[in-house]
């Protein structure tokens, strides 16, 4: 049995704003073991990034407030940690890389220095030691002539190289968990594949657990063991990558699949987008938050919030009808009426 690194248990993070309470993360649960990769998928505003920042203990309060649940890192509650303890965890045990490598590196420092920084902060390494290790790390993430490139400034690096440098920075202290917040969104498609491959290769080497946050199911398919699909701050489906891809149980996950271009499925040349817009988090529709966009919605969906239900052991979906016989991807809208009655 591998070590349980992270337990997110019924976690709720709400923001109080002038317009009302924003339930940015509402009742999210998942676990992460050493060496595992979790994909968190959802549209903008679905709470993916806030979940990540909550794990880092970086949601500013106010306005953010933990109103329920807990996040435990190796059994220790992150929500209850002192800022000093948390600072020790950040970068050292849990590292994070961001979406836009163009702006995530400090323009006035040489790249090597930035990679070396967390070694100086956490390991108390001397400048020379840290610089030498930084060159090794840059070499590890596949930057050619790392010795010379370490002395370059960020503006002399290309986008893909910067993301590699960011990964080197994140991995400097050999963290237990690496959180990647849309690590490939700002990159070219070919570079995206390279970065994903790099992360997989490094994971195989170091055993770091990865949480990859994305709105791209394709990215998740490549790398994730387990997948959490989020919508409007709530988890809608959680299961192994295989379950999410081959036996998705929630209409929203179906919608995500339908809006994905596929070259391996003959006849599927037309993309079917999910109709409508994600709801405003201040003014969520009653019942299931997805019901206004769901072709299968019934009266029950408008009034009753669906609790996540077990489809299979570990495979959960937050839909009243998930797992009912006949309620599968591609079934006709309207079939639910008889099924759910």
């Amino acid at each position, binding site marked *: 049995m591998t070590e349980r690194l992270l337990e997110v248990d019924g976690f709720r993070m709400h923001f109080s704003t002038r317009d009302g309470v924003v339930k940015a993360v509402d009742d999210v649960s998942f676990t992460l073991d050493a060496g595992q990769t979790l994909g968190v998928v959802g549209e903008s505003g679905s709470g993916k990034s806030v979940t990540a920042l909550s794990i*880092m203990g*970086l949601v500013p309060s106010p306005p953010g407030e933990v109103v329920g649940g807990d996040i435990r890192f190796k059994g220790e509650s992150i929500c209850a940690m002192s800022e000093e303890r948390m*600072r*020790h*965890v*950040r*970068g*050292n045990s849990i*590292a*994070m890389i*961001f979406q*836009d490598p163009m*702006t*995530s*590196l*400090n*323009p*006035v*420092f040489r790249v090597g220095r930035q990679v070396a*920084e*967390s070694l100086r*902060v*956490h390991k108390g390494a001397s400048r020379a030691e840290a610089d030498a290790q930084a060159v090794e790390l840059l070499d590890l993430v596949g930057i050619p002539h790392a010795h010379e490139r370490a*002395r370059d*400034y960020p503006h002399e690096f290309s986008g893909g190289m910067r993301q590699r440098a*960011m990964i080197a*920075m994140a991995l400097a202290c050999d963290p237990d968990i690496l959180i990647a917040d849309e690590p490939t969104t700002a990159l070219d498609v070919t570079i995206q594949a390279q970065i994903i491959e790099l992360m997989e290769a490094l994971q195989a080497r170091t055993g770091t657990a990865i949480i990859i946050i994305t709105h791209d199911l394709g990215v998740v398919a490549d790398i994730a063991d387990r997948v959490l699909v989020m919508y409007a701050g709530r988890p809608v489906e959680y299961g192994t990558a295989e379950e999410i891809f081959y036996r998705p149980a929630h209409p929203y996950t179906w919608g995500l699949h339908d809006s994905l271009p596929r070259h391996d499925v003959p006849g599927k040349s037309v993309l079917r987008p999910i109709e409508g817009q994600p709801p405003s988090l201040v003014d969520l529709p009653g019942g299931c938050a997805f019901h206004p966009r769901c072709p299968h919605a019934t009266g029950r969906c408008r009034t009753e919030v669906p609790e996540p239900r077990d489809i299979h052991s570990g495979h959960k979906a937050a839909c009243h009808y998930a797992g009912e016989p006949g309620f599968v991807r591609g079934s006709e809208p309207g079939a639910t009426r008889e099924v759910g009655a």
Partner: protein
Amino acid sequence: MRAPAVTTPVAPTSRTLWGDAWRRLRRNKLAMAGLVWIVFMVILALSADLWVPQHFGDPERIDTENLLELQLQSPSAVHPFGTDRLGRDILSRIVYGARISLTVGVLATSISIVLGLFFGALSGYYGKILDTLIMRLADVFFAFPYILFAIALLAVLGRGYQNVFIAIGILGWPSIARVFRSSILSVKESEYVDAARVLGAGDSRIMVRHIMPNAIAPIIVYATMSIGSAILAEAALSFLGMGVTPPTPSWGLMLSEARGFLFSAPWLMIYPGAAILTTVLAFVLMGDGLRDALDVKLKEEG
């Protein structure tokens, strides 16, 4: 004002951002003219004892015997800028006045910068109540007419040139604090600051290593220009009789003494006036050039 861009066919690869900025600054002719003039004035002020006709740095060496015979002489080979009512050589006084002006300018600006950076950093980084308090205090400073406030301060502190730069320095902090605060606010939101925080860096490390270097460019520009305004303020205060005490040579004081001789001995006014004008202008041009040179957005085309 921006100097016409001189296009160099091959941009040399740079190793440092400051090297880049210096290269851009060097291409700006007006800024370089300002810089040359500033350097010239500094050299003049420092080397004054070696060559000026009368030594006002050292009272022992003033030839008091013959001073009265020399009063109000028009410019000549011996006294290129003429002499004043007491027979003192104008050139000597301008050169020694440069010491006072430059010292006041630099020290006053240093005081403003120290205070301004401190309060601006607190205000921008921590925000909330501290921000409101500091910014409202700055508003109070801005609400008073500058010269009146300076005169009031000097009335409390007393005259003399230390008090002049202290007063000017104290009055200068709110502008620097505002400029620094706003650049911190924009840098603070940048992703590399988030990245540093994610790395586990503490507040002070983030402030000093990540925010300061990125927010300092506007301060450098502002400080350069503010040396010019401090020189001007010193001249104004001395002119009004609230600044440097006679017989210390000060450009403002010299202008003040020239008032009665506007037509009979115009050199009394022209030369100190020109000294103030050129020096202040030099700092402004230099600051303007620095603004262009340090602008990150222009850099890409560099």
